[in-house]
């Protein structure tokens, strides 16, 4: 079974703080993804990575950065958290073909 784990289920941060969300997968997948899930807006891609040290912007990269130093780990960084970044963050991984993505449990981030 593919396992995608995220470092926290719930996180509360203050405006201006630097926030790290970590995602680890154990199936040697090439692709990893970070999404935001918001009611009415669905799933929006923030960034994805198809290889170590490689990254590509998704639909809403502003205010975020990512890091992939090892194949199994993909980090999402909020350099200076803002209240409009309060959301559910989902990490996913897949083989080269992105058809079947395996999702983590999500991190619900609240920025006060």
């Amino acid at each position: 079974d593919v396992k995608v784990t995220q470092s926290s289920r719930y996180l509360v941060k203050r405006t201006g703080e630097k926030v790290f969300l970590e995602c680890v997968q154990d199936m040697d997948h090439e692709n990893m993804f970070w999404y935001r899930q918001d009611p009415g807006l669905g799933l929006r891609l923030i960034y994805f990575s198809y290889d170590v040290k490689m990254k590509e912007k998704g639909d809403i990269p502003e205010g975020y950065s990512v890091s992939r130093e090892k194949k199994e780990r993909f980090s999402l960084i909020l350099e200076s958290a803002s209240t409009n970044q309060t959301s559910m963050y989902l990490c996913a991984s897949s083989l080269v073909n992105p058809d079947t993505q395996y999702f983590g449990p999500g991190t619900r981030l609240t920025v006060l």
Partner: protein
Amino acid sequence: AQRVTQPEKLLSVFKGAPVELKCNYSYSGSPELFWYVQYSRQRLQLLLRHISRESIKGFTADLNKGETSFHLKKPFAQEEDSAMYYCALKVGSARQLTFGSGTQLTVLP
């Protein structure tokens, strides 16, 4: 740019009734379409893909290129079908999917 539209945010049906979750896409080439599902307190997961032409948990979806649609259908809804459903699109050799805004399906007893 490609786009996926799910016009219904919420959909309620009674148990045993037919259900159809609508999905329309905008893309001029040959798309690949998928349905993902998230049950309460569970992870988002792939339900089915158009290329497989399979029925999963009684659900089917047919790609209609003329209408640019990929509606998800089930003839007799069950309470356990209550979930959030997302339609997703892959274009060409892209390494990512484009998801719609989702439809929350509630099957009433």
